[in-house]
């Protein structure tokens, strides 16, 4: 399996993602934002960070970068595109995913472990995954997912809500919502479910000496599903 991680100026989870992908068997390559083309890949990842400084709306400049056309083409042809954190923000800015990530409700950067529930398993990302409630890590200032009523209806109708914030038992309550996201949304799919954007970082949770190793379930499973 070949994966490509796109590096934008200001990306800072690119190495972490590279480490994680390789650990679970991917042949990963790093692709610089200034390139026009992406080498042949089974998966493209937009990593976390502060692309172009995020001085404008988060992800908005990356959504206009040279490489992004190829990402959009790849996605539109059914290719798998995964956006984590800033990558999720970029995906909403390109329009590949609906909605937007607003500033956290409490107006603070939040870095902590959270639990998320997998809401839909009929897709390449979560099919056959061995655990349905994952303990992952968030680290963001703009993770408060928001969309219009029409978009929300469409998300629901098409089972596009991928993961939602919950407690360790899977209870989705506003109490367990770290950033004020609508319906506790932590991540969503595109209609065809080939594109996944989510705020939590599975790549930071890949061995037991870190604060959780639930990221393993995610990557192991993704690799198996792509085989």
């Amino acid at each position, binding site marked *: 399996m070949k994966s490509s991680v796109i590096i934008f100026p200001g990306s800072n989870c690119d190495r972490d993602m590279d480490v994680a992908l390789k650990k679970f068997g991917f042949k990963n390559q790093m692709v610089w934002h200034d390139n026009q083309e992406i080498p042949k890949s089974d998966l493209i990842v937009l990593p976390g960070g502060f692309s172009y400084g995020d001085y404008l709306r988060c992800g908005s400049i990356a959504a206009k970068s040279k490489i992004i056309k190829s990402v959009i083409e790849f996605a539109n042809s059914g290719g798998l595109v995964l956006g984590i954190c800033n990558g999720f923000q970029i995906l909403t800015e390109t329009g590949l995913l609906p909605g937007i990530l607003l500033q956290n409700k409490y107006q603070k950067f939040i*870095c902590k472990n959270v639990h998320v529930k997998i809401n839909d398993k009929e897709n390449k990302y979560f099919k056959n995954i061995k655990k349905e409630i994952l303990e992952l890590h968030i680290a963001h200032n703009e993770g408060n997912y928001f969309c219009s009523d029409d978009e929300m209806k469409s998300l629901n109708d098409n089972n596009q809500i991928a993961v939602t914030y919950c407690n360790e038992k899977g209870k989705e309550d506003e109490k367990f919502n770290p950033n004020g996201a609508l319906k506790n949304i932590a991540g969503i799919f595109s209609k065809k479910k080939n594109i996944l954007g989510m705020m939590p970082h599975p790549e930071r949770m890949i061995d037991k000496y870190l*604060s959780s190793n639930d990221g393993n379930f995610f990557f192991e499973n993704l690799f198996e599903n792509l085989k």
Partner: protein
Amino acid sequence: MKVNEQIAIDHGLKKEEFNKICDLLKRTPNLTELGIFSAMWNEHCSYKSSRIHLKKLNTKGKKVIQGPGENAGVIDIEDGDAVVFKIESHNHPSFIEPYQGAATGVGGIMRDVFTMGARPIANLNSIHFGSPQHSRTKNLLRGVVKGIGGYGNCMGIPTIGGQTSFDESYNGNILVNAMTLGLVDKNKIFYSKATGINKPVVYVGSKTGRDGIHGASMASAIFDDKIEEKKPTVQVGDPFTEKLLLEACLELMAKKSIISIQDMGAAGLTSSSIEMASKGNLGIELNLNKVPCREEKMTPYEIMLSESQERMLIVLENGKEDEAKRIFDKWNLDFAIIGKTTDTRKIELFFDSNKVAEIPINILAENAPIYERKWKKTKLPQKIKFKKDDFKKLKITEVLKKILSLPNISSKEWIWQQYDHTVMGDTIQKPGSDAGVVRVHGTNKAIATSVDSSAVYCYAHPLTGGKQVVCESWRNLISCGSKPIAITNCLNFGNPEKEKNMGEFVECVEGINEASKFLDYPVVSGNVSFYNETKDKGIKPTPAIGGVGLIKNYKKMITMELKKNNNLILVVGKTEGHLDQSIFAINILNEKKGPPPEINLFNEKNNGETILKLMEEGLINSAHDVSLGGIITALSKMAIKGKKGFKLNNLRVLINKFDYYFGEDQGRYIIEIEAKNLPKVEKILKDNSVHYDDIGLVTENEIIVDKEPILHIDDLIKLNKSWLEDYMDK
């Protein structure tokens, strides 16, 4: 403008200093030259009040690759790896503009580290604010935390530890000390010493603006009513550009083209160019028209004194200019050849084809004034005779509850949750522990690091306080199973022109030195911040010590949370019940006098090394050092982290239970061990002549004292966590 004595004084120079400049130059300097002198000769850059005392510090050791005098210190962590680290203050700017002041403090210290070729792997900070009731405290705290997070988070470097305190002595002068650690190949360290003549001097990074002009001079002055006017001297940070600069510099460093590199920190282009030339015994010639500027019509004076951030000065090998330029172009950063090295041993500046300054380098560097300031010794205060009858009215439960919710004891989660502490995927011990721990990527090793200070002890008796901070740092590193290697210090003091403040400095440094020597825990880098004084009111002496230790196998790291029911709890080290200057005395009894706890360096070393032996044998399940608030506070924190309870045995000691549980005697640790291991543990402790008390055991969730359940762990967690959250958000 013709320079005269008044103008020199307005630049922060003393009359005698101005006369000395005229004598050395054999003429009156022009304005640009005067600006350069004021930047190089202020306290912040010249260390003129502190230098003779800093010289005495213990800076050598088997593991020391580079001691003080470079951008940062470097230590050997084996296998060809080295750690570069330093702590630095950004106190004055953070009080004037908390967000930018703190942010650029973090940016500056990271540059110091990657200038040496190291990739930053961890940030820490030590921040001190006025009384929570003071009108400015809340906003300053909010701004500083946002600033630290804003910069470090964007850079993608985890902030893994720190320290926060509140004390009314910081009402008019907060302290913001930032520390960074970086990892480098031992054979690929870059230094600031320039060598070779006619080598291109290259400017890279952001453009130069008018921000921060005279920042270093501001940091060398006391505050008065007009501090708002100083806002323009605070620099503005751009972490995105610094991230690009980091990647570009490391990319260039991988090639063999850099002779010397220096970041433009305090006093910007002035100090960086002079430093490189001075260390290499060379001259330097700069054409200021070539400096990339972001504002129009900047004068040579402004260009030389700007403290715009995210800039570096590099001396390149001849012929490597194009290759270097390509890298900086790729990262969209400015790259300009602005001059060359010369054999004149002078700094010569040109602007619009005129020579605008010419100063022999040795005058600026070696001839900078050095002061042997007068200082006063602080006598050891008399011990307080506490009225033990008064203790009878107190209940352990109530005292413990009060202590755990005090501003200086309560959990600082509200702060560190705003710092990305897991990016880079190697953080194995997070903030809120004895030390933060990050793995050395791709190896079995890990680096433990913490930052400590004890202003209350240092104020009561600077000599003891200085020793104590070093010991506390050492204990924090031992507690997580690391071998302490070296320290960096940030010496925050009041006005050195006052004998009392100068005395506090001299004696704290002496204490630091004594402990550092005894523990073989050398000082490899540091920074001095004087003039932390507003309207005649100075801060308590606050030396902050950043310690770094090595864990050879991270799988053997120890954490502080209580682990398993019925495990035994031991206090290692002798408890005499020293209450003077303790949290208990100050906050419960309202007694602020008396000496700080005594430091016995022999016991300190012996106890620490014995703890490490126990850890090596795999006999310790959790460990935590005993500090503020004594045994019961330390144990409560272990319980809070592990969401466990504890049961205390009936005391088998001769002292009062308040003395025992709340005394702040030094050199002690609490360890959790399995009952079956007790004989082995006892043997090792006895063989090494280490005193210990078996005080109780771990329970599921109740805190039990004198056979009475006094608290549930959930209540304790809430108590400890809520003070700061309520203070900031309600």
